């Protein structure tokens, strides 16, 4: 166990820090790095176990046949994780990385899939690494549509922070010069397959340059970055990368924070509340429940960064300062826990591309293609608001394909040892509008393993999303057809909120404390030394994967926090 995990509770200075960061995932890691590098003494609290880079990636170097169940999870594992059991995240290699759902249940007023990983690094280990900038189309969307509240920032405010983040984490991608998907600082793009290249070219031609199928922008290192290895194209990222070749807290922000000598990491620390000083309107620190010994500890700090993931950050706020606001810290606006968003997906189209029998590929690309949003942009008006993108891939089929003319036997086996025909498919990722009545609240009747109240989820897709979903399927079919794909099948598997793993909006930013929880620097209006910089802060959802934006907002807020500390404002 590294020194940073040892807290000597008999030493008074172990109880006081300049900053406390709640959570160690994508945004928490960034908060810790930025604050440590600015000279602050930081305590990072993680509710789950410690999880060491490389050493704890237990499966990452196994060959496929070394997995006892060859990738499948057991019935016993499914019983411990009944939520993950309902998702595509159930996989032998990483099943233990997910939170044990039975220890921390939640209430589904409406069906809700909550993918949680309670261990150091959070979902930064498991994430899909897709990294897209948002544009002014997104930061202006609510204002232009007159929907919910306006974003308090524009692209120019976040653009330098996207630069800052991309340079540090490494994002591979191709510059495209698109206003709706701004270019960033890219490492070399990964290559498309032969079929993907031709489909992209045909879509460009058929839609007269108005639709763009590009290679995904992924936080995988296609070129060297100091102290991290390059992508080896094994496509096993979510097991944890022994080469450190994709961005995670462990591979990237945590080593940077630790190298300052200013970081203390405390695992098994469930934050139960932020301690609020009502005379100063400031947080004084936090109270935790040790998940192992069930004892309560308090730590004080000048500032608190809340990065527990969107829904859990709201949970912490709801349980804080309840003597002043019964609904919790940040609830004075009436918006805490409301406006829950996600990206809705699990629908699209796929088909077969004839020919290309003399083409194949080498390596396993941990990335796919991306079709950039076109709906409701540049005059392409639809009967719903906002838009969607697609993610997909075009590959040759493997042994699991069916061989119609063969049943069993030697010829059947030998046929399966060769690659099959090319198939190409894609799923849409649609924007979900912020609705006040899509909300989470505390269910005080139900308790988790530690006796803490749980969240009740009450969110659903509404008419705008339902209309959009019809269009997502129609357009997916139309584009594949235009590109010459045959035997096209479409699907819409439905979407339960949360399943996009992009929960957002539970403590939104805004310009007015009456209608938002956070100001434009991610400070809680009612406690300006508390910063919330994970998905909770989002004002709209756009349709691009949001993690890069969380990172940029976190770095921006951390720098602002340092300035405010220096000025004595917080």
């Amino acid at each position, binding site marked *: 166990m590294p020194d940073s995990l040892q807290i000597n509770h008999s030493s008074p200075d172990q109880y006081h820090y300049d900053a406390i960061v709640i959570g160690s995932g994508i945004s928490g890691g960034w908060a810790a790095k930025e604050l440590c590098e600015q000279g602050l003494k930081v305590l990072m609290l993680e509710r789950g176990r410690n999880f060491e880079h490389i050493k704890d990636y237990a499966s990452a170097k196994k*060959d496929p046949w070394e997995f006892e169940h*060859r990738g499948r999870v057991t*019935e*016993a594992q499914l019983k411990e994780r009944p939520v993950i059991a309902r998702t595509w995240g159930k996989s032998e290699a990483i099943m233990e990385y997910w939170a044990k759902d039975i220890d921390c249940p939640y209430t589904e007023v409406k069906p809700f899939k909550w993918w949680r990983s309670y261990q150091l690094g959070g979902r930064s280990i498991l994430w899909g690494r897709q990294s897209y900038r948002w544009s002014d189309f997104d930061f202006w969307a609510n204002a232009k549509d007159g929907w919910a509240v306006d974003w308090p920032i524009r692209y120019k405010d976040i653009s330098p922070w996207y630069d800052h983040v991309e340079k540090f984490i490494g994002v591979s991608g191709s510059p495209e010069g698109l206003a709706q998907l701004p270019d960033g600082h890219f490492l070399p793009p990964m290559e498309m397959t032969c079929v993907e290249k031709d489909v992209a070219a045909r879509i460009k031609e058929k839609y007269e340059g108005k639709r763009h199928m590009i290679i995904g922008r992924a936080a995988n290192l296609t070129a060297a970055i100091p102290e991290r290895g390059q992508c080896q194209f094994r496509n096993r990222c979510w097991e944890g990368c022994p080469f450190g070749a994709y961005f995670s807290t462990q591979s990237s922000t945590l080593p940077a924070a630790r190298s300052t000598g200013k970081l203390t990491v405390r695992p098994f620390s469930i934050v139960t509340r932020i301690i609020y000083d009502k005379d100063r309107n400031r947080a004084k620190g936090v109270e935790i429940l040790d998940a192992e010994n069930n004892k309560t500890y308090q730590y004080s700090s000048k500032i608190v960064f809340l990065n527990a993931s969107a829904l859990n950050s709201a949970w912490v706020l709801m349980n804080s300062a309840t003597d002043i606001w019964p609904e919790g810290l940040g609830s004075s606006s009436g918006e805490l826990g409301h406006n829950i968003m996600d990206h809705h997906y699990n629908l699209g189209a796929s088909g077969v591309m004839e020919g290309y029998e003399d083409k194949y590929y080498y390596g396993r690309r941990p990335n796919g293609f991306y079709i950039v949003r076109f709906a409701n942009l540049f005059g392409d008006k639809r009967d719903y608001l906002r838009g969607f993108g697609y993610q997909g891939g075009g590959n040759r089929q493997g042994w699991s394909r069916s061989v119609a003319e063969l049943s069993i036997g030697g010829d059947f*086996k030998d046929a399966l040892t060769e*690659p099959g025909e090319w198939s190409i498919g894609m799923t849409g990722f649609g924007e979900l509008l912020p609705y006040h009545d899509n909300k989470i609240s505390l269910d005080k009747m139900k308790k988790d393993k530690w006796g803490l109240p749980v969240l009740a989820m009450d969110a659903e897709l509404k008419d705008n999303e339902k209309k959009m979903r019809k269009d997502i399927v129609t357009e997916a079919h139309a584009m594949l057809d235009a590109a010459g794909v045959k035997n096209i099948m479409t699907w819409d598997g439905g979407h339960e909120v949360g399943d996009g793993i992009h929960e957002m909006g539970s403590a939104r930013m805004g310009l007015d404390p009456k209608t938002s929880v956070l100001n434009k620097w991610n400070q809680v209006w009612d406690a300006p030394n508390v910063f919330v910089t994970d998905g909770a802060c989002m004002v709209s959802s756009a349709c691009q994967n949001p993690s890069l934006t969380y990172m940029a907002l976190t770095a921006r807020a951390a720098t602002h926090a340092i300035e405010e500390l220096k000025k004595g404002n917080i």
Partner: protein
Amino acid sequence: MNRRDALSRVALILGGTIVGAEAFLSGCKTGDKKLGESLNLSPDDISFLDEVGDTILPTTASSPGAKDTHIGDFMKTIVNDCYEDKDQKIFLAGMQKLDNASKAKYNKSFLEADTNQRHDLLVALDKEQKDYMDKKKPEDPTHYFRMMKELTLWGYFTSEIGATKALRYVAIPGHYEGCVPYKKGDKAWAT
């Protein structure tokens, strides 16, 4: 009480193992003991599944068959650990059903049938399962032979032999090329 239970009880009463009990049991198995009586599949059950798997994916000039990958042991592991109760029951009952189908067709158990007979029987069962699976309602049970075939393909192609001899496997590709030439006969990538 069946013969095995009876012997276990005798062993218990005598406070130890009965020498020669296994020989006694195996000597009496023909026409007496059923296949797949419990999830704790016996060595005979495993041998039976090995032969079923090897009929689905036999040794060919280019690669070994499923028996070489211990496909019976693999099926046992997955059925025990990863199958729901109702599917476990279907699988276990299916073993005897398959053997009965052989007896009905050839008047021989599956293990007594020759290679061609085994092949023809499983072709017929595969047709039966396909027809059934195409028509069945979602809540209807899965056909047992569908399970055996899926387990065989999955277990074989993800085994070391399947991945490295029937297919091509590179643990660490090191780089990626999206578009390279392919000529007929080149093996597919294992993953």
